[in-house]
């Protein structure tokens, strides 16, 4: 049976404080979903979908978990405000139709979601934050076992077979440390686990 992962979300902080989060310019043409691991582009610092390989802590490693979906911007940070400036773009990524004789003008559907060229993420390198994600082993669903904490707490992240969300993969040992069971789930399949990122595997922000 294939894994159908759910979005990764932060579920608690060790300190009790708010989950550490940032909003950073989004790279061009990104379509990642909310609740997925993201990295930063070396060329321009825009937030991109994590490619799934780099776990060295260098550029290309996970910087966080997105808390909003990417907007498929035409260019990196399109419309983001400069320091001490208002939003320089449309204020929305959704447009429709065209405007007569004004090629650059845009129709924004009324009520269209706001967009300022940036995207939000929960910081991975902040050791205070505990995330929750689906548990699996190299593509197969895996049930929680109390022995996990003592025998196999290290894992990685792998995107599910539908290419949607990422699960905690016991077939890897390079990115996260499982710290407990997500008690919201009943015993059985589809168990979610709590995890934290390994500090040396993620990029510091």
């Amino acid at each position: 049976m294939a894994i159908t992962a759910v979005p990764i979300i932060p579920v608690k902080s060790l300190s009790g404080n708010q989950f550490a989060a940032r909003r950073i310019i989004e790279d061009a043409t990104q379509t990642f979903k909310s609740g997925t691991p993201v990295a930063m582009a070396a060329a321009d610092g825009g937030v991109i979908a994590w490619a799934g390989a780099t776990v060295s802590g260098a550029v290309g490693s996970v910087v966080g978990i997105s808390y909003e979906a990417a907007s498929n911007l035409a260019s990196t940070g399109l419309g983001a405000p400069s320091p001490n400036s208002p939003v320089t773009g449309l204020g929305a990524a959704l447009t429709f139709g065209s405007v007569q004789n004004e090629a650059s003008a845009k129709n924004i559907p009324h009520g269209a979601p706001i967009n300022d060229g940036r995207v939000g993420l929960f910081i991975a390198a902040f050791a205070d934050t505990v995330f929750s994600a689906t548990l699996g082993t190299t593509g197969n669903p895996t049930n929680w076992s109390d022995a996990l904490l003592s025998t196999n707490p290290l894992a990685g992240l792998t995107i599910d077979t539908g290419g949607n969300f990422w699960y905690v993969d016991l077939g890897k040992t390079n990115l996260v440390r499982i710290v407990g069971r997500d008690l919201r789930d009943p015993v059985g399949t589809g168990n979610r686990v709590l995890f934290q990122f390994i500090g040396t595997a993620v990029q510091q922000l």
Partner: protein
Amino acid sequence: MMVRGQWAQDLAPGVHHWFLHFLDLQMRREEYSTIFNVETSQQAFEDEIEAAGVGVMPEKPEADAVLYDDMVQGGTKRYLHLSYAIGSRASWELIEDDQYGLIKQVPKAHVRSAQFAREIVSANVLNLGFSTILTIDGVSLFNTQHPLLGGAAATNTAPGVANVIFASGTYPNRPSPDVDLSFTGVQLMINQFERMPDSQGLPVRVKPTTILIPPELKFIAREILGSPGKPYTADNELNALLGEDLKFQVVHYFTSQSAWYAVADKEYHQLKFFERHPIDSDYDDDFDTRSTKIITFQRFSAGATSWIGTWGSNGP
């Protein structure tokens, strides 16, 4: 974090006067509200949409059917309010030992900071108006070719614009090339205002009333606008600009020393400032350390819905 080690002079009485810059120095009088139309907002954003009317009413020959023309919906300008905030922390011990009540004045320093933020953000609508600040037509606020919804028909309709425009179907509110503030530069600006049409080419009543300048241009502005004779000539001609009833306003938040701008009275232009949340302060104590956190915040947006009624030159 402000602690007693950094504020040792605050711990003992006897200082005659603390020269507090944010209290003893007056901030400049509010400038953005003299330029922008200030409105309030109760939402995350405000959308504005423009629409053009119809073109010129043509003759209807006898017994001939009337010609129909349509109003034209234009694009959307969204004002997305951003949050601005600043915070300070002080230890409980410093607050308790503060002999002059200085720490209680922190919110006033914050307010000074907040007022500057709204001034500089608003001024940057103009500072960046030659590049990244866009109006509803999708091009920069100050542009030599603002596209008109009516297209070429609009500039064909608009009387006398052939020598003003740089491309058919467009209208400028910026010279090409940019010009310094000068007698002829002001004349050029006035000419572009005088011929300014709406999106169907019908002339609109927009009269430049205020030239906005950085402090460095104050003296030349006074000479150009105030001299009884034509400035910089020995021919004893009248200063023809006197009849234009133009005034100038120094804006201390302009970044360029040579860029200058002109605007009509506020009801004739669409520069807007939306107040989403006024300047507000709050504080709280940390239970464990008993230190105090003070934050001041506000939400607003500024921008330009339309270029009509505005004009800018980015110096030479």
